[in-house]
């Protein structure tokens, strides 16, 4: 005997496709256009300028050491001839992260407030995180075809859980006494959120953002299997051609991007805690 679980999932996806195709097409067009435009723009500006910009950000948000590392490692990527792939992956990660945060942070806020919603969201998040990420590729392709857009969408599905979880965690960790302070001074629920809870939850939310970025980087290679351009597809090339050289160079570039983004975002968490040292 065989349980028809796979079949019902298939039917469900088919149902979505039949009824909501225009919506998916719309998303694909907008997102695809946006990513292509951003990618093209970043490739149009001289690499040197981009390197200076990113190192400047690193210096401003983190410290001198991170800035120096950024300069050196980006020159290395450029030298390996992987600049174009690097920028595409950069755009993919940034866009996926932004979408994850735009959905994830409000979800985190809501589920910290509504216990019933939280009871539904938590298992869904567990599911999203533990399901092998390759599985997301199939419906992503069905909905959005192949290319960058399904790559971003499946990356979002995989990388959004930490944004929700850590936002919720941060908000739940706000001491009750501080919430009482807000109530005793007559704050509205909204004032309570942005004057007390979000500022206090910020370190945790920043950790969530950092996690989301790291998770989406780990999806880069996987997403290349459905035609997403970037460093991932270079790695895939290496696998297909049994070329360790290309594979290693592309992999190294992913690591470099990961380190840069990690150092910048993790220092954000400590900066926002206290305006001055």
């Amino acid at each position, binding site marked *: 005997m065989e349980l028809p679980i796979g079949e019902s999932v298939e039917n469900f996806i088919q149902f979505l496709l039949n009824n909501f195709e225009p919506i998916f097409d719309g998303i694909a067009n907008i997102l695809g256009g946006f990513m292509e435009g951003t990618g093209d723009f970043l490739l149009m500006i001289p690499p040197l300028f981009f390197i200076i910009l990113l190192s400047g950000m690193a210096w401003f948000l983190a410290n001198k050491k991170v800035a120096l590392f950024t300069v050196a490692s980006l020159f290395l990527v450029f030298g390996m001839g992987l600049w174009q792939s690097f920028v595409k992956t950069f755009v993919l990660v940034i866009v996926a992260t932004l979408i994850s945060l735009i959905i994830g942070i409000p979800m985190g806020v809501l589920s910290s407030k509504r216990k019933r919603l939280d009871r539904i969201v938590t298992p869904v998040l567990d599911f999203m995180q533990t399901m092998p990420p390759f599985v997301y590729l199939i419906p992503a392709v069905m909905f959005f075809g192949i290319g960058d857009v399904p790559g971003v969408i499946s990356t979002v599905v995989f990388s959004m859980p930490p944004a929700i979880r850590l936002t919720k965690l941060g908000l739940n960790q706000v001491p009750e006494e501080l919430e009482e302070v807000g109530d*005793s001074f007559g704050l509205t629920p909204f004032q309570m959120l942005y004057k007390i809870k979000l500022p206090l939850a910020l370190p945790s939310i920043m950790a969530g953002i950092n996690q989301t970025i790291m998770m989406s980087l780990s999806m880069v290679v996987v997403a290349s299997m459905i035609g997403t351009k970037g460093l991932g597809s270079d790695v895939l090339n290496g696998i297909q051609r049994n070329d360790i050289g290309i594979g290693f160079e592309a992999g190294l570039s992913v690591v470099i991007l990961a380190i840069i983004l990690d150092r910048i975002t993790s220092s954000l968490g400590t900066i926002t*805690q*206290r305006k001055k040292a």
Partner: protein
Amino acid sequence: MEKIQVKNLVKIFGDNPKRGLKLLEKGHTKEQILAETGLTVGVNDVSFDINANEIFVIMGLSGSGKSTLLRCLNRLIEPTSGEVMLGDSNITSLDKKELRDVRKHKFGMVFQNFALFPQRTILENTEFGLEVHDDITEENRKEKSLDALEKVGLKGWEDKYPDELSGGMQQRVGLARALAVDPDILLMDEPFSALDPLIKREMQDQLLDLYEELNKTIVFITHDLDEALKLGDRIAIMKDGEVVQVGTAEEILTDAKNDYVREFVQNVNRSQILTAEDIMIKPEELLYENDGIKTAKYKMKRNGLSSMFAVKGKRKYRGIIRLENLIDAKKEKKDIKDLIENTKTARPDETLDELFGDMADLDVPLPVVDEENNLLGIIVKGTVLSNLAGEDD
């Protein structure tokens, strides 16, 4: 300013508290209700008034419901039944928006563990309450906050962060934050319990100073009887969610309503609480300035005394006459005026602690006089000792 009236306030914790309410009305005890329904009675049918402009202390051990009661006043905890009146307005029937307005303008709250925001500077912490007032400019807000900080003695600390301050200073910030909104009523939830004894005393003195100058009603929670007696104009003693006794420090100490209160107060250092006025007695008989020597001798003999106090007119205090001086006095002297000796005197509000020094080297009773030098009474050594021992008569 308005007074606060608490009428038949009940708070029951748990699901469906109305069930517990019915059982309470039927006369079930707290324990019975917990056993039958799993509901916890936090505050059980409490009624009292808090006068405008007094320090009202709610005292009880942990679990007695005092913090719950305090939070029912501004509805941080929603009462299950009963009323809280502030002047003519019924706090318990306000809708959410009205309640927020009352909280914004009428109440200021100070918390046990200071509850400061770690990411805000001292000034920003102090400004917090005012930030949600719509009718105030930024400069005005800053001005009021700096003013509040100065009142609590933290001028110059504006730009520090809470973790750079000691516990006592942090609680001053908590106090300044409450004062900055200029509320009529300060709700203080064990504000000094987390401080060490020396700092605690200092803070109590400062609170009393502020109270003198500020014209506010203060509702103060504590588990420390000494603190209650020191600060409270009136004290409510709570046990198991009920108010056992309400009264002045004096009434609580000398007229305990039941064994619980009696047990509570028996360890108090009475010497700090009782004043000269409380323990003085009426002199049996007085000498008058123009009594003759013979009259004086006779009066002493009749009362079996070796010395007596002399007054002028009805009760203007003059001094003491000793029997031996009367005996030595020359017969030709008409009255006792020249024989009057000066002695130490006490004011009615001096505590026993302060009186000890004066009493020690005195072989006669200590007269208590008011500002116009009227003799109010005398203190006999024996009375002092028996009062210290805690006997009422």
